[in-house]
């Protein structure tokens, strides 16, 4: 119960942070406060949000997945190559790309859960491997990795650029995935298994949970979500490139950790991650609208990450001491 309360508190703090951000950016640039601008800003960071929702699962089991950036590029290349070179219908490439993402995730999960390689090292290796694959596919097919493949049909571009009743599609996808991942992590037996594996692997095993399979499944989820993000990003930019997600790892881990998930595993939640990913996204978007070059934004994201975790760590570790001192003072 107390952990639940603590989480709730952290999420409230995130909501305040988000509100503060919107007010500050609104003061700098009033155009920022228009509902349309705010809604469409989601397009800019929806890929980060989608992936961080499911990387949360991985981090809760005590692992980490730094290969998601490469999986974005790989799925983007798969879409582009299958469409342009193999003559697939552009919509038929989507399930293939998702499958590629799931397989990539399964390889990560297999290495971590069954072979016993540390998550950081395993996904570091596959990060090189998958980014290598996308370059190889591009290279063999004879297209230039720097130019990418573009000229997709309008219907495909509409996945990310269209809207339903004025609500942009990426926003709808994001909302749907929040609900799905929330139910999966917080309302199902599977979700409890994920937490238990993160808290105590042996306890999970003794209670009859196949902890290896649970770990594997979380990587499949994060791999598939990365592929989905890759498809959306390809549609949004109208171009399939191998290096689409290369720079997103910092933002994704920031979103998950800022959202209140412990990097050591065992505790966390998707609502916090969703809020934090929006905060990170709005920070990027707002700084851009305030006229700050996008290359400087990593300073803000990095500071946000460190300060948030430091404050959280301080409040957790220093409160008992302060409390003790306080009690002592009262007693005297």
């Amino acid at each position: 119960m107390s952990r639940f309360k603590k989480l709730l508190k952290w999420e409230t703090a995130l909501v305040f942070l988000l509100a503060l951000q919107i007010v500050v950016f609104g003061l700098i640039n009033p155009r920022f406060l228009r509902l349309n601008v705010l809604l469409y800003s989601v397009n800019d960071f929806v890929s980060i949000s989608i992936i961080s929702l499911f990387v949360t699962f991985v981090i809760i089991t005590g692992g980490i997945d730094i290969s998601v950036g490469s999986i974005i590029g790989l799925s983007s290349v798969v879409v582009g190559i299958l469409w342009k070179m193999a003559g697939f219908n552009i919509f038929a490439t989507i399930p293939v790309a998702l499958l590629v993402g799931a397989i990539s995730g399964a390889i990560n999960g297999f290495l971590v859960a069954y072979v016993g390689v540390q998550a950081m090292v395993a996904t570091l290796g596959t990060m090189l491997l998958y980014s290598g694959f996308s370059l190889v596919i591009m290279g063999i097919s004879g297209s230039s990795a720097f130019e990418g493949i573009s000229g997709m049909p309008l219907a495909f571009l509409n996945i990310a650029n269209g809207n339903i009743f004025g609500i942009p599609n990426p926003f709808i996808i994001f909302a749907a995935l929040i609900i799905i991942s929330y139910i999966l992590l917080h309302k199902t037996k599977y979700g409890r298994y994920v937490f238990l594996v993160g808290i105590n692997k042996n306890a999970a095993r003794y209670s009859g949970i196949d902890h290896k399979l649970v770990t594997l499944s979380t990587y499949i989820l994060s791999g598939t979500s990365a592929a989905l993000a890759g498809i959306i990003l390809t549609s949004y930019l109208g171009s399939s490139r191998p290096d689409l997600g290369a720079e997103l790892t910092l933002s994704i881990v920031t979103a998950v950790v800022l959202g209140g998930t412990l990097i050591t595993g065992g505790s966390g939640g998707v609502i916090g991650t969703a809020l934090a990913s929006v905060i990170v996204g709005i920070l990027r978007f707002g700084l851009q609208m305030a006229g700050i070059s996008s290359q400087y934004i990593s300073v803000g994201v990095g500071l946000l990450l460190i300060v948030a975790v430091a404050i959280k760590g301080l409040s957790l570790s220093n409160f008992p001491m302060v409390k003790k001192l306080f009690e002592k003072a009262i007693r005297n």
Partner: protein
Amino acid sequence: MKFFVNRFVKNREVTVVIFLLILFSLVGLKNPAFVSPGNLMLTLKGSVMYIALAIGMAFVILTKEIDVSVGSILGMSAAVAATMLRNGSGLFSIIVVTLMVGIVSGLVNGIGVTKFKIPSIVMTLGTNGILRGLMFIYTGGKWVENLPDYFKQASQKSIFGNMNSFVFFTFIIMIIIHLYLTKARNGKYFAAVGDNLEGANLVGIKVNFMKILAFVLSGVFASIAGMVYVSQVGFVGNVAGNGAEMTAIASCVLGGVSLNGGVGSVLGATFGAIIMNSINTALVFLKVPAYWNNTISGLLLIVIVSSDALISRYLVNSAIKQRLSVKTESNGDGKKEEIGGEINEQI
């Protein structure tokens, strides 16, 4: 079998060297030009930057932390060094100021990790982003070019006949650090902190100080790598050092420095860095298109760490089995199988 497996794990440096020799001789068979002294020196010269990063990284990983900010520290140091060079500062002040960049970054990382209790991957990921952004602000997003020739030529100078000066000094430094880590009392503290934090604390080792020192050393070596970068490349672009942290971590892991802390040596890390770098050159000599580079490095890394994990699990398993069978025999009760089965699965 077990003898060889035992040796494999205990003497990872030897295994890495053997692997390196196999790699060179296989590629040499296919294309003899690869093993010519000139090309070997060229390969070593190309690895100097990564060796420096890997040595610094080894300190941090030994203490069971990780530093993913070295790529940005490298970039920032390179930018500072190049700008000062262009403005005509003296060599001594350039070296001092550049090293300060690494020292300060390392201090920030170390203090964040030890005093504010931020997990090292989060802390250094944050400083990585901050430093990358600061570098853009510092350079204004422009390349730093038109550097004086003397600095660029330093990386080409040879001593003792064919020996490149940078390679020579790197190996001297590496050997000194290796001796310090394995023979000196303070040097073993790094591994002690990573192996058993509580234990190290109880014996009176200043745990936090050792960790901060490890981060500072990692920063210093990243700064040195930055200066090497400036000298070898001759200009500093916006993405200098981007992703170098991953190569450094991979080099350490290849060289047998365990991310679990406490195990490994800078010798192994150095050879790991040479392997990581020579794969790229080897592919050129095998006439494999350059776009295969990442795939092959990634595959190699996965194969090596997987076999490492499997072999060490096999060893631990067989050790436990042995101990248990001795125990149960002396006790004489029939619980042998039950206990053995239980513990086996735990691992």
